[in-house]
C-alpha cells in the first residue's frame, strides 16, 4: 500500500515537471532573468527581476512592442539562481528549452561565467551585470555588459576628488579577496596620479564585523580620507560607525559598490554625514523616482539603486529587438546594439556602446555614474563620472 502511495507521489511529481513543458507563446517577446532572488544578493536580484517588469508593464500598457510592423507583448520570466553556477545553468536551460526565451538578463559573475559559452552557442542575446573583465572577450557576440565597470568610472571619480576635495592623505580599505585586491591596486595608482598621498592600505575578511583593531592602526597613520573602495555598503556602514566611535572625524569616500541607504543603516545618519559615495542613480531624478515608485508598489520596499541599470539594460535590449525588426533573429538583434546606442537613459543621461579598451570588443553599455554625498541620511548628487 505504501509502495503504491510512493509510486503515486513519484508519478505526480513527474507529471508536475512535465506539465511545465510549454511552447513559446506566439506574439510574446520573453525576457528571462537569472538572478539571486533569495539570500544576501536578493536586493540586487529583485532589482534585476523587477526593472524589466516595470519596463514591460509600461510597454504593454501602450499596446505592446512594435517590431517589424507586428505588435508583441513583453513578458518577463525571472528565476532564482541563489548565486550558484549550477542553479544558473538549470535556470538557463529552463528558460531556453522550456520557456522559449531568446533574450536574457544575468546578474552574477558566477552565472555569467558559467553561461557565457551557452549564450554564444545558443545565440541567446544576454545582458549581464557581471563586473569581471573575463565575461566579455574579443570573440563575444551575444553577451553585453549593462554598465560601466570600476576601471571605467573610478579614474574620473578620483579626478573629481582631486578638484573638489581638499584632503589629500588617504588610506585605502578593501575586502581581502580578488575584487578587493584589484580595487586597491587601481585606486592606489589613481590616487597617486592625482596628487594624493597614499599612506597605506588595509584588507579585511568579508565576514569581519569588529574593525576596531584595524581602525586603530589606520587612525594612527593620521589620514584625512579613508577610502572604502569595494567594501560592501553594509560593512562600510559598520566601519564608519566604529571609526567615528574611535574619534575619527575626517572624510570617508567609497568609489565602488553603491548603497547609501545601507551605509546610513549601518553607520547611522550622523556618522555617515559627509561620506562621498558612487551612485548608480540620482535619487532626485524624475525618471529614477518613477521606476523606484513602481518597484515599491510591486515589492513593498524601496529598491536598491541598481534598479536603474537593469531598467536601462532591458530598454536597450528591447530597442535593439525593435531595430532588428525580427525577434527570432538574435544575430540581427545583437548587431543592432551598435545602431540603437547612443540613446538616453531613464535618468536622461547618454548611454553609449564601448568596452573595447578593456574587453577587445564594444559589447558594453557605457553609463554615467553619479558622485553623491550623504547629507542628513540621504544621498545628494554633487557630481558625475565620465
Amino acid at each position, binding site marked *: 500500500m505504501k509502495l503504491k502511495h510512493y509510486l503515486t507521489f513519484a508519478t505526480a511529481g513527474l507529471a508536475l515537471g512535465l506539465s511545465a513543458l510549454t511552447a513559446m507563446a506566439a506574439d510574446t517577446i520573453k525576457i528571462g532573468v537569472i538572478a539571486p532572488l533569495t539570500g544576501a544578493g536578493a536586493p540586487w536580484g529583485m532589482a534585476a527581476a523587477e526593472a524589466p517588469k516595470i519596463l514591460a508593464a509600461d510597454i504593454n500598457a501602450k499596446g505592446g512592442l512594435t517590431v517589424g510592423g507586428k505588435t508583441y507583448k513583453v513578458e518577463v520570466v525571472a528565476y532564482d539562481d541563489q*548565486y550558484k553556477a549550477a542553479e544558473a545553468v538549470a535556470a538557463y536551460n529552463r528558460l531556453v*528549452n522550456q520557456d522559449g526565451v531568446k533574450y536574457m538578463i544575468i546578474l552574477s559573475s558566477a552565472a555569467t561565467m558559467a553561461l557565457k559559452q551557452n549564450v554564444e552557442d545558443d545565440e541567446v542575446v544576454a545582458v549581464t551585470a557581471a563586473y569581471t573583465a573575463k565575461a566579455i572577450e574579443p570573440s563575444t557576440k551575444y553577451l553585453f555588459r549593462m554598465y560601466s565597470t570600476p576601471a571605467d568610472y573610478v579614474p574620473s571619480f578620483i579626478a573629481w576628488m582631486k578638484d573638489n576635495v581638499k584632503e589629500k592623505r588617504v588610506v585605502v580599505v578593501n575586502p581581502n579577496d580578488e575584487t578587493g585586491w584589484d580595487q586597491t591596486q587601481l585606486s592606489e595608482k589613481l590616487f597617486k596620479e592625482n596628487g594624493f598621498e597614499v599612506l597605506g592600505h588595509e584588507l579585511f575578511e568579508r565576514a569581519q564585523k569588529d574593525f576596531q583593531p584595524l581602525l586603530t592602526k589606520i587612525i594612527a597613520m593620521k589620514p584625512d580620507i579613508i577610502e572604502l573602495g569595494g567594501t560592501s555598503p553594509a560593512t562600510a556602514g559598520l566601519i564608519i560607525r566604529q571609526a567615528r566611535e574611535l574619534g575619527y572625524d575626517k572624510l570617508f569616500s567609497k568609489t565602488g559598490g553603491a548603497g547609501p541607504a545601507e551605509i546610513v543603516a549601518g553607520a547611522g545618519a550622523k556618522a555617515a554625514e559627509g561620506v562621498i559615495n558612487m551612485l548608480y542613480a540620482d535619487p532626485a531624478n524624475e525618471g529614477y523616482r518613477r521606476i523606484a515608485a513602481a518597484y515599491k508598489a510591486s515589492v513593498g520596499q524601496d529598491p536598491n539603486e541598481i534598479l536603474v541599470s537593469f531598467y536601462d539594460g532591458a530598454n536597450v535590449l528591447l530597442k535593439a529587438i525593435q531595430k532588428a525588426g525580427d525577434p527570432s533573429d538574435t544575430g540581427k538583434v545583437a548587431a543592432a546594439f551598435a545602431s540603437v546606442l547612443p540613446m538616453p537613459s531613464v535618468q536622461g543621461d547618454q548611454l553609449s556602446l564601448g568596452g573595447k579598451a578593456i574587453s577587445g570588443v564594444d559589447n558594453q553599455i557605457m553609463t554615467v555614474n553619479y558622485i553623491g554625498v550623504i547629507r542628513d541620511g540621504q544621498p545628494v548628487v554633487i557630481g558625475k563620472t565620465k
Partner: protein
Amino acid sequence: MKRLILLAAIVILAVLPWLANNRYVFHIATMIAIMAPLALSMNLMLRIGQLSMAHSAFMGIGAYASALLTMRLGLPPLASLLCGGVLAALTALVLGPVFLRIKGVYFVLLTYAFGQIVNLVFQEWTSLFGGNSGLYGIPKFSLAGYRLTAVSQYYVLALLFTAIAYWMVRAIERSDIGAILQSLNEDEMLSRSIGADALSWRIAVFTFSAAIAGISGGIYAFYIGFLSPQAFGFQLSVDLVVMNVIGGTSAALGPLLGAIVVVPLPELLREAKQYQLLIYGLCLMVFLIFIKQGLVSLIDRPRRKPA
C-alpha cells in the same frame, strides 16, 4: 518483488530524459546523476557512524584538480578525472588517521573546519584556483578523441559513474566488509574484541568515499565548465545529509532515492519563485516527519526480528 519494481521505476526514470528529449530535463537528470554518487559517499560515512562535513571539500578537490590538470598540464580529461579522485582519496588518507580518532560532534566540527579551510584556499589562491571570480574555460570532457558537448552525453557519463558507485557500495553492503562496518557503528568495542581494526576500516571508508566524491566533482567541473568555491561550501555537505535522511541510510538504495527526490525538488518548485525555498523546506519537513526511516523504509521491511 517491491525492490524489483522500484529498480524498474529507477530505470524508467533514467531513460526519461530521452523520452522528454529536452535539454532542461537532461540537465536536471545530469545533476541527479552527479549528486547521487556523492550521496552514496556520504552514506558510507554514516554507516560507520561518522557524519562528515568534509565531503563537499573532497568534491571541490576533485573538481579543481580535474579542471586544472587538464587546463594547465594538458592531461587527457579521463586521466585528470581519475587523478582528481585519487587526490581527494589521498587527502582523506592523510587526514583520516588524525580525524577518525575523534567521534561524534567533534568529528563533525573537525571536518567542517577542514571544509572551510579548503574553501578558503580556493578563494584566496587566485592565481591557481581563480578565487571568487571562479575558474573558467574548463575544456569539455573527451575520451579517445571523442568530445562530449551535449548535455545528454554528460548525463550518460554521470549515469555510468552513478551505476559504478552504486554497484560498489552495494557490493560492500552485501559483503563481510559491510558487516564489519555495521558492527563498528553498532558496537565498536565488541567489533574490536573480535579482531576488527576499527581505525583502519574507518580510514579505508573515509578514503574510498572521498575518491567517489572527488570523481563526482570532476564530472561536475567538466559538465558545468566553470568552478567557484561557493559550489563546494557547507551547504553541499548538508544537502548530502538531507539526501541520505530522506532516502534512508540503511541501504545503498536510500541515498540514490534521496538524490532523485531532493535534487529536482527545487526545480519542480521553481514556478513558486520567491516561495520556492520556503516550500522546499516544508516538503523536506513533511518527508522527515512522516517517513522517518527514509524512502527506502517503504520498500525494505526488517527481514528478521532479533531472537
